[in-house]
């Protein structure tokens, strides 16, 4: 599918820092860290979604803000761990896979989109989908840049 990888300045892609490595085996400590991170992410999202609940016809600000802010943090963590395996340290499973993974959500966003389509709110659905993706990508880019700049400055 991807055909022309760029022979870039960075030797390895840090996609592997989020994607679990296929060669490694599972270990209990890692799963525990993911579990604990997942607890925190789930609690924070559930609380924010209740506290800032929006009406049916409104832009879902809570999930939008959660997804964008979680993307920013994940990009920072993953960029910080670049070159090292996510699984060699507790920070990756705890903050990356566990917390950011559980704090941000895809399923609720898709249900919201389907409910907007139900009500013929196509413009709202389109702008919510496109806005989430663009803001999410921007947040990843910003989190990445921030950590890379900081690392260069050190």
């Amino acid at each position, binding site marked *: 599918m991807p055909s022309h990888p760029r022979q870039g300045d960075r030797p390895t892609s840090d996609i592997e820092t989020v994607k679990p490595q296929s060669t490694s085996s599972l270990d209990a400590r890692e799963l525990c860290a993911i579990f604990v991170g*997942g607890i925190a992410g789930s609690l924070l999202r559930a609380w924010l979604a209740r506290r800032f609940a929006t009406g049916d016809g409104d832009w879902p600000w809570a999930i939008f803000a959660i997804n964008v802010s979680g993307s920013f943090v994940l990009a920072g963590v993953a960029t910080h761990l670049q070159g090292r395996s996510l699984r060699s340290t507790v920070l990756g499973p705890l903050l990356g896979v566990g917390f950011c*993974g559980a704090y941000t959500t895809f399923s609720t966003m898709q249900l919201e989109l389907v409910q907007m389509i139900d009500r013929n709110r196509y413009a709202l659905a389109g702008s919510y989908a496109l806005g989430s993706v663009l803001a999410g990508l921007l947040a990843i880019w910003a989190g990445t840049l921030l950590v890379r700049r900081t690392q260069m400055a050190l």
Partner: protein
Amino acid sequence: MSAWTWVGVALLGGVGACARFLIVWLIAMRHGGNFPLGVLAVNASGSLALGLLAGLAVSGDLLVLTGTATLGSYTTFSTWMFETQRLGEERWVRAAVLNVVVSLALGIAAVALGRTIGSHA
């Protein structure tokens, strides 16, 4: 929401995160390549399950526990965006665009399908 429901939100959130990790790991074991199939499979299956809950008209604390906590933590937005941005950065633009379009199309279709199945159950 009762204190016990919050305890449930916490524990089931942890379970959802571990389930996501295990499925992404299992798919990465079987599938090489750079396309992030694992997160796509997790997000599509989680959306199907949430659609099913909506179709079954699950509500109240039970919906918070199953939908918000478990499926909300199981599916993820941040990793989806991270993998998309890194694909783009590596100049695999087609794969990056595909990852966005296929995820959204599958997610919406999965919710709709789950809801239809649930409302007929």
